[in-house]
């Protein structure tokens, strides 16, 4: 591409010049009136544009691309409804600290404030759900705003940045200037170094602790600290619990990895946390889904909180030693000075807790001819050799995936943790596909969530890309149904859901559809999906009223879990009130098949 610095270019050209120089090779978007000048200029630039079917899909795709690659994801939309449709995806990226730049067209600057056609104050709308945002009304401001946007999105605690560019700024011209010097924003300080006195206090606590536990959060992965964490654990022999977004930051099959903590964490993990005397929290934020009732949360434990964002310190949990800094940097400073210690008593205690839970593990239950979601995901783990890039949606299947698919490597599980956005999985997987064209990508999604963004099957077809979609179809909004069963006396209000024939839906898009109703069919279906070119949709008809265990009810103490039933599932035990009353699956029997 010719170097056009010094030439007079339109704002639209400047936009793509800046993106190319920021290393953007793909963007996800949807054109419309106020962004048309930008689209008109696009074909001259080496950036692949993916036309989505809805702007929400574009923002999730940019998000998925960013999560899988570690780079900044880019989405593009027009003004008004185009911009507002991005909002859910922007909020998703904000709560999970995902670097994203969302570029929106805006009505011409002279019309701003006049309620012009397709005018929305998108910088106002996105103010609380972006790390920062810009309204650009002159071509001269486009390049500096985009440079700052990329810098802010990727530095410090990452997040989404919106750049709203008026149509006239895209149309007018100015000289293209590019400043290679590092960006210095007077009020923006993304880098914090830990204070040595805090490190000293942390070392003291770590070396004295008898029952320590490490929390691995999203910051371990984002801070590229996975290697250092492994070294730290090898040396100290401290067990590790992961947050949902931290899964993969520490190898799941490592003997010191306990698994996921929190509302649907395994019982031994939550109990170990409650019994610990020291928590070393790395790059996580003590979300309410992780802590349960704060009053009785890990009451005996001292807490060290290593976190890049000072505003997270003492927000939910009062900590003894706050260390504001990058996880990798902090671990690097602690590592030479932590002392190995004999943990046999503490690890023995955790093993005893594990033994108690293992007998309840559905994974080992005999095949009763029924298809359980846990079996599907466990089998998927086996047949992909644990190496797939899995993108999950939100709900029961998301928790089962977190429990039964063991991720040994970072960036192999993409999921909407903080916002819990249904409809995230399919578009995010499409984005991830562009970041990782050589990886096996699986979407694990519920029958509810997939229908929120099912229009993006058409994007898969148009782009000719392959993702494998495992629909965990139970005919219910499963997690809400589970809450209704546990906490609302089984009143299934607005949770039974009739779905289209997902195989026919796939075929209607020119994709492949497979139906699975028994466990024996799982392997052939997965194998066929792996061998098939193009996107494959598998409709797994699983048990309808299965529940995710263990479960810490919202607001309860972390140790106060609803445990998995000890005996193999029988109809009487697993079926909820609706099926017990009717004796059949009302939803699946409404269709023709």
């Amino acid at each position: 591409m010719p170097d056009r610095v010094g030439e007079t270019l339109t704002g639209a050209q400047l936009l793509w010049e800046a993106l190319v120089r920021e290393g953007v090779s793909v963007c996800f978007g949807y054109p419309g009136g106020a962004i048309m000048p930008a689209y008109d200029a696009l074909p001259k630039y080496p950036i692949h544009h993916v036309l989505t079917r809805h702007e929400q899909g574009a923002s999730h795709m940019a998000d998925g691309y960013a999560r899988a690659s570690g780079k900044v994801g880019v989405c593009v939309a027009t003004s008004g409804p185009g911009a507002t449709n991005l909002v859910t995806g922007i909020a998703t990226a904000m709560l999970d600290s995902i670097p994203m730049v969302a570029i929106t067209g805006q009505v011409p600057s002279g019309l701003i404030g006049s309620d012009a056609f397709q005018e929305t104050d998108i910088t106002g709308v996105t103010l609380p759900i972006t790390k920062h945002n810009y309204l650009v009304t002159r071509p001269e401001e486009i390049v500096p705003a985009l440079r700052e946007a990329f810098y802010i999105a990727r530095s410090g605690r990452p997040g989404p940045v919106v750049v709203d560019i008026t149509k006239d700024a895209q149309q007018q011209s100015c000289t293209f200037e590019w400043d290679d010097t590092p960006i210095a924003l007077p009020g923006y300080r993304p880098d914090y170094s830990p204070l040595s006195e805090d490190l000293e206090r942390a070392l003291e606590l770590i070396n004295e602790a008898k029952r320590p536990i490490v929390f691995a959060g999203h910051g371990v992965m984002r801070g590229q600290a996975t290697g250092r964490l492994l070294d730290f654990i090898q040396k100290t022999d401290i067990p590790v619990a992961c947050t949902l977004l931290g899964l993969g930051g520490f190898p799941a099959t490592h003997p010191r990895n306990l698994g996921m903590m929190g509302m649907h964490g395994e019982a031994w993990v939550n109990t170990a946390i409650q019994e610990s005397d020291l928590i070393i929290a790395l790059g996580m934020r003590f979300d309410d889904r992780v802590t349960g009732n704060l009053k009785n949360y890990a009451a005996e434990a001292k807490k060290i909180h290593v976190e890049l964002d000072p505003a997270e310190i003492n927000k939910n949990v009062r900590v003894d030693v706050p260390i504001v800094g990058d996880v990798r940097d902090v671990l690097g400073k602690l590592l030479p000075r932590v002392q190995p210690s004999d943990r046999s008593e503490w690890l023995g205690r955790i093993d005893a807790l594990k033994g108690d839970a293992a007998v309840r593990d559905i994974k080992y239950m005999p095949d009763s001819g029924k298809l359980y979601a846990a079996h599907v995901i466990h089998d998927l783990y086996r047949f992909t050799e644990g190496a797939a890039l899995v993108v999950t949606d939100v709900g029961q299947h998301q928790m089962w995936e977190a429990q039964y698919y063991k991720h040994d490597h970072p960036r192999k599980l993409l999921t909407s943790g903080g916002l819990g956005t249904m409809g995230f999985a399919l578009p995010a997987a499409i984005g991830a596909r562009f970041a990782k064209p050589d990886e096996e990508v699986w979407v694990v999604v519920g029958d509810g969530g997939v229908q929120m963004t099912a229009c993006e099957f058409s994007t898969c077809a148009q782009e000719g890309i392959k993702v494998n979609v495992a629909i965990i179809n139970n005919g219910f909004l499963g997690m809400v149904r589970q809450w209704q069963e546990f906490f609302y006396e089984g009143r299934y209000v607005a949770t039974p859901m009739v779905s289209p024939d997902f195989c026919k839906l796939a075929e209607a898009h020119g994709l492949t559809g497979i139906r699975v109703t028994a466990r024996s069919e799982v392997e052939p279906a997965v194998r066929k999906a792996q061998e098939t070119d193009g996107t494959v949709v598998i409709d797994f008809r699983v048990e309808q009223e299965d529940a995710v265990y263990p479960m810490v009810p919202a607001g309860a103490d972390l140790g106060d879990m609803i445990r998995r039933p000890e005996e193999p599932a029988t109809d009487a035990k697993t079926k909820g009130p609706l099926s017990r009353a009717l004796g059949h699956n009302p939803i699946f029997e409404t269709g023709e098949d």
Partner: protein
Amino acid sequence: MARTRTFVVHVENKPGVLNRVASLFRRRSFNIDSLNVGTTHEPGVSRMTIVCQADDDTAKRIEANLYKLVNCLRVDEITDVPSVGRNLALIKVGVDAERRAEVLQLCDVFRARPIDVGPESVVVEITGAPDKIEGLVEVLRPFGVLEMVQTGTVAMARGAQKYELGNGHHNSSSPVRAA
């Protein structure tokens, strides 16, 4: 324990910055008593005085969250440092010539100044702490207060220190250290 806190916040003078600060307080449920903003002697820099109710932890979080705003240059909590703070109020009292002298006499006691005198009203200007202004309003009330307006507090620490803008707390976790 929540108590009254005063923050001095230096921000870039750019469109929308006031909205960003106000939105932050609203979104995080921090309770603002008053917010005052104006330009400073430094080009491009505006200064806010924010008075709010907060306990120690919340005060630290307010500071840390303000620092997360890209346009926020520096935050200083001056609640417990020697400082001066002033409000300004204009009070219009409905009095005719007959009782005007009485009003002006009271104003004198409070070091308030008449800035406009009409046949049936007087506008007085008073600066000071909120309780002093309240005191004047109370003694004028019997004469008939027609309207009043007042600013929030503007505050400044005593002493000769100069704020280094853009370097406040850089590379330090001091904003979050437990109190």
